[in-house]
């Protein structure tokens, strides 16, 4: 009995010294909730972009501020106006045109809507210019098959065939303009340059220039022919208010009938659009099309940055930790390195611009590219300078992590190596560095995450809104370290805040953000997998 009483008194005591556990738990919970909300918002809004919406025919009250009559549009959001409290819908009407290039998104007060319906035969087309078109198809006029009415069964196949045809013509045009004409322009520039350097070659080069100009004219003629071909097949469409428009099929990328699609069809379409977003070049001031150059630019820049920062940081840390005499001076250096991590990134951008671009880049141009001056080659922002600037920015992270990792290698292992007759450098190289590799990689992971997400310094040293060519391609010398590039972080800023059509850009911002996060996560995961492999290999011995 006495025993059970003792046990009871043990149980009834409140836990001593454990009362504040909830506080630490709450700190974690707040952090997790905030991150989860942010990621959830980006995930939902970012993926929502690709989900095909149903098209609604809206009949508006006569004289309403958002227009009157019948309209076709995708209802994006239904919400209460923040100031008036009246329910309003954000509707994507599309159908921008040369005559009316204003925004295709409008707010419609729900009170102004007399009726809505979802017509089955409505069609949405993604166009090369002016965004989406939303319409009822009427007839297709092609050179091959003549006039085909939209009601007939041959209409859809004929339209798809016309779109395919247009796609191949656009491909041809792209190759012609970018590859063939580009090559001739480059040769022309080279010949002109040679004349400037060596006037004795003038006559020979002039002849060559004339020949190239003739070839250029021929190609330009071909290009004009292809352009005209794109205008030949016409899709006649009827807008909701009865107006008929003639739409050349050469301008259409793909069409779909959103109200006829089932779940599977919409899913397939969403994936198709997502894939296009990943792989295509941007169009129309970056508000349409894909973001492939930005993904690629971010990736290449981050890799280049890691290649530069890792050896630099590791070597610096080895000296600091292993060779430098530990004293006041080394302590000052260490504190300075730590504080470097707190310097605003724009300061690094300014430094990169002043030091790398204007000073070093200018000298490089003077020494190696003097023939193309005054057009700068390296004397202007480019992916190499951007990577170097970011390497500088992330250097403290790598140094600090490497120092920690080196310090964590047990003394016993070092002594064992020295006792085997290894020199200090051999010990570092064969024993200490392999054992600290996981820790060093942690630093590189942090540096990559920080570097990939940086925007401000990049704006000064080489990121542009639209880069015509990638920093890596199949054109010799394959790596173009001088080229300007696109970056996902800057793309978010550009699309979100510099775009003429804010509502059209908003979904793109979320989608781009999502991709930036995914890219950083993928690169980090790769590094983490490598680190875990190393960690398993170099796990410290336990008894």
């Amino acid at each position, binding site marked *: 009995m006495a025993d059970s009483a003792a046990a009871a008194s043990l149980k009834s005591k409140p836990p001593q010294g454990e009362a504040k556990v909830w506080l630490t738990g709450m700190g974690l919970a707040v952090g997790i909730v905030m991150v989860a909300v942010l990621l959830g918002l980006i995930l939902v809004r970012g993926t929502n972009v690709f989900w095909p919406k149903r098209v609604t025919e809206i009949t508006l009250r006569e004289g309403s501020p958002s227009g009157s009559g019948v309209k076709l549009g995708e209802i994006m959001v239904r919400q209460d106006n923040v100031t008036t409290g009246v329910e309003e819908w954000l509707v994507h009407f599309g159908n921008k045109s040369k005559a009316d290039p204003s925004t295709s998104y409008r707010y419609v007060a729900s009170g102004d809507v007399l009726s809505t319906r979802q017509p089955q035969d409505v069609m949405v087309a993604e166009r090369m210019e002016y965004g989406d078109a939303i319409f009822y198809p009427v007839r297709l006029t092609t050179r091959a098959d003549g006039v085909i009415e939209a009601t007939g069964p041959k209409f859809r196949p004929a339209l798809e065939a016309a779109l395919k045809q247009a796609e191949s013509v656009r491909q041809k045009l792209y190759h012609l303009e970018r590859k063939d004409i580009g090559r001739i322009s480059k040769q022309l520039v080279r010949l002109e340059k040679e004349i400037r350097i060596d006037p004795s070659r003038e006559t020979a080069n002039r002849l060559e220039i004339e020949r190239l100009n003739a070839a250029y004219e021929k190609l330009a003629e071909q290009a004009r022919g292809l352009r005209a071909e794109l205008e030949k097949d016409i899709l006649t469409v009827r807008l909701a208010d009865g107006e008929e428009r003639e739409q050349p099929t050469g301008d259409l990328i793909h069409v779909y009938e959103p109200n006829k699609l089932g779940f599977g069809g919409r899913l397939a379409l969403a994936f198709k659009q997502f894939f296009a977003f990943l792989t295509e070049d941007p169009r129309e001031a970056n508000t349409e099309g894909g973001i492939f150059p930005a993904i690629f630019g971010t990736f290449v820049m981050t890799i280049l940055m890691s290649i530069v920062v890792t050896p630099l940081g590791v070597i610096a840390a080895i000296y600091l930790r292993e060779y430098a005499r530990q004293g006041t001076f080394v302590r000052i250096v260490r504190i300075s390195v730590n504080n470097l991590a707190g310097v605003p990134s724009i300061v690094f951008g300014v430094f990169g611009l002043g030091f790398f671009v204007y000073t070093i880049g200018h000298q490089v141009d003077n020494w190696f590219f003097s023939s193309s001056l005054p057009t700068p080659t390296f004397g202007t922002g480019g992916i190499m300078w951007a990577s170097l600037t970011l390497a500088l920015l992330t250097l403290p992270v790598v140094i600090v992590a490497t120092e920690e990792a080196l310090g964590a290698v047990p003394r016993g292992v070092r002594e064992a190596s020295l006792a085997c007759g290894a020199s200090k450098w051999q010990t570092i190289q064969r*024993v200490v560095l392999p054992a600290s590799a996981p820790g060093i990689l942690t630093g590189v992971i942090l540096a990559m995450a920080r570097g990939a997400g940086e925007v401000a310094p990049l704006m000064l040293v080489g990121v542009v809104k639209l880069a015509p060519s990638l920093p890596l391609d199949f054109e010799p010398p394959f790596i173009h370290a001088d080229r300007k590039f696109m970056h996902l972080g800057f793309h978010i800023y550009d699309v979100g805040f510099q775009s003429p059509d804010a509502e059209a850009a908003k979904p793109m911002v979320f989608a781009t953000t999502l991709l930036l996060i995914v890219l950083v996560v993928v690169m980090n995961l790769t590094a983490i997998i490598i680190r875990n492999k190393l960690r398993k290999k170099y796990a*410290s011995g336990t008894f």
Partner: protein
Amino acid sequence: MPPALSNSSTEATPAAGPDDVLNSAYIDVRQFNFWYGAKHAIQNVSMQIPEKQVTALIGPSGCGKSTLLRNMNRMNDLIDGVRHEGDILLDGTSLYDPSVEVISLRKRVGMVFQKSNPFAKSIYENVIFSLRVAGRNKKAELDEVVERSLKGAALWDEVKDRLNESAYGLSGGQMQRLCIARAIANRPQILLMDEPCAALDPIATLKIEDLIQDLKKEFTIVIVTHNMHQATRCSDRTAFFYLGELIEYDQTGVIFNTPRESKTEAYISGLFS
């Protein structure tokens, strides 16, 4: 690493040993003093260690025995703020002679530590580490050294089928024997052992002690131990240190049965430790 300043007192004659074996002194410690900063860790120690015998250094913690051992391959050079006086001669050559290269010294004097410290490499690479750093990479030679060293450390039969597996897969006793194999791989003349069995269970300890008996045919062994029984079991000569001083140094049997100094007697009978 700059050669340590040496004010070796070469004029000092070796202190008269307690018995005549010492005429063949192999390691000759001459009036050696050592300081960690202000701490006088070894005070005027002179002792002669004969070749191909096991010499045990015993004494309570902080008595300087490990410090002396670590001076025999100049491992203490790595510590900041240390200083020494006197000299240690190895086969007639001063360790602190400016012409002595620490790396070649350490090739002649192998060391086994208290905590086994294999490298994060395969068993094979662990054994041949000293050959690798010396630039000896011939496969046939390496294979032969691995087999000889692991047999010498009585580990060959246990690991011969998994030489390319990580050394961290071994048990504690096996790891320590691997460290011994690594230390004897490039055939040093002297093997310093700093409490090699401190972290091992009795069975593993017994194996290492048997091993020491085998190894002394080939190597001169100096072993630091806290375990008095170990000293009696496997050493030929024993030196007792107390507070940085060498109190008594003689044949093991003499030290443990008829010690001359009262401190020695007190220590070996467990009165203080």
